[in-house]
């Protein structure tokens, strides 16, 4: 039998900042953008959590709950570096590490006591070397180990010997994989604990939750495949979003940012030799109501002009009912470019490629805003959030 440890760094970004700036210890601290940038909190210290501040909350809301909250700008390079250090410690001590996110990983052993000793040693080493604490959950199932790591946080340590009974007694919102919508739906049917799902016949469950019913049923008997907690390093889509400094109704302004986001996506697609055939436009209204519109294309694209034109077609079909807070584009159906590259028989293609090459050279030499299209003149804030590949 394989025993799993789920290791989770306690309020990772905030803890790293407190370790760097020990004079903030014991004070409410959060990592996020400035109050005026309309960004959200990415991590909050345990003291800040006492004021109800949590990740995902807009910075202005966090500041209204706790006016003396210390907000520190995120330094992703720093967090990535510390994350690597954590995984290295786990690898050195346990010999196997399965990173799950920037601050979470799994490791395993066939001997329970061996895993407990190694987990305690890892916790101690992380605290000594990196001055941050980690919580561990141990069980024979990854999903149970993940839930158990949340017990007694921060600096928690919890071993679950009977995973089936443990999960059955859990509240549904504590189960990873049950999102807010499913939680709301389950609660509307009077289901608050995992064990209650077991009482519903599968045919009813399937009617109510469609394909999700399989996950819910597997949960009650713990037949969930541990592979679902494997980090999949296959790129499925590449996307970016932009939050406007002020909510807007102006279609031209929104289109300007769609154009800018398209350029960012093109750059990332070109860097990784990707192309995609599915466009998803995300729009968030001022009241945080968010919706997406998707379009499957008949061909694969990677150029900003194509991404922009296709997104524009989707956008123009939308009737805006409220001012827009955020707009985002994602290119999905990703595949590697190269062998599928269209053959450049016509002169226009060659000219276009050369022009693009020269534009890139100018931008590299004189900066991103040295050469702009007319539409770019609408764009005042050129920062695009989410400069990462979405897995």
């Amino acid at each position: 039998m394989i025993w799993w440890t789920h290791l989770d760094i306690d309020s990772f970004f905030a803890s790293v900042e407190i370790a760097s700036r020990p004079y903030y210890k014991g004070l409410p601290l959060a990592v996020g953008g400035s109050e005026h940038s309309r960004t959200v909190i990415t991590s909050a210290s345990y003291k800040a959590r006492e004021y109800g501040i949590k990740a995902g909350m807009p910075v202005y809301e966090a500041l209204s709950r706790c006016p003396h909250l210390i907000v520190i700008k995120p330094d992703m390079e720093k967090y990535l570096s510390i994350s690597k250090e954590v995984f290295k410690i786990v690898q050195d001590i346990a010999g196997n590490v399965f990173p799950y996110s920037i601050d979470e990983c799994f490791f395993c052993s066939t001997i329970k006591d061996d895993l407990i000793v190694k987990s305690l040693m890892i916790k101690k080493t992380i605290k000594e070397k990196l001055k941050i604490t980690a919580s561990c959950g141990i069980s024979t199932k990854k999903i149970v180990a993940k839930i158990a790591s949340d017990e007694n946080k921060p600096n928690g340590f919890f071993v679950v010997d009977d995973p089936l009974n443990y999960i059955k007694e859990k509240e549904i919102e504590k189960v990873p994989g049950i999102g807010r919508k499913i939680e709301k739906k389950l609660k509307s049917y009077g289901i608050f604990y995992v064990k209650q799902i077991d009482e519903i016949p599968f045919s009813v469950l399937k009617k109510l939750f469609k394909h999700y019913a399989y996950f819910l049923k597997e949960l009650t008997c713990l037949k969930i495949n541990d592979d679902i907690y494997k980090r999949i390093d296959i790129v499925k889509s590449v996307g970016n979003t932009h939050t406007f400094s002020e909510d807007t109704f102006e279609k031209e302004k929104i289109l300007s940012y769609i154009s800018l986001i398209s350029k960012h996506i093109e750059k990332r697609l070109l860097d990784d030799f990707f192309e995609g055939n599915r466009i998803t436009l995300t729009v968030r209204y001022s009241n945080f109501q968010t919706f997406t519109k998707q379009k499957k294309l008949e061909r694969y694209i990677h150029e900003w002009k194509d991404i922009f034109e296709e997104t524009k077609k989707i956008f123009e079909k939308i009737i805006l009912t409220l001012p827009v807070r955020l707009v985002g584009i994602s290119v999905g159906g990703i595949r590697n470019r190269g062998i599928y590259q269209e053959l450049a028989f016509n002169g226009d293609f060659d000219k276009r490629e050369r022009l693009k090459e020269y534009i890139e050279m100018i931008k590299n030499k004189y900066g991103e805003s040295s050469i702009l299209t007319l539409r770019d003149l609408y764009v005042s804030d050129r920062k695009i959030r989410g400069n990462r590949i979405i897995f």
Partner: protein
Amino acid sequence: MNREQIFVLAYFGKGKIVPKTFFWKGKTIKVEKLTYSWKTVDEDGIKIHFSTISGSFYYHIVYSLSTNRWYLIDVESAIV
């Protein structure tokens, strides 16, 4: 992040780099506490970052392994 080149007296040995004193704006600043360090890699090579406290200020300094130069990245008050 803005960065300003600075001169640093540091200890190099036993696989460690420990900044001891640095000179900035005509002042000599003694590193009283080295609170944190981490490593980043970019197109210019490996950089080692240090969070330090001197007096009532916090300093974020960085050492570039490829150019052997030190930079000051950030200064803030360490008084809360």
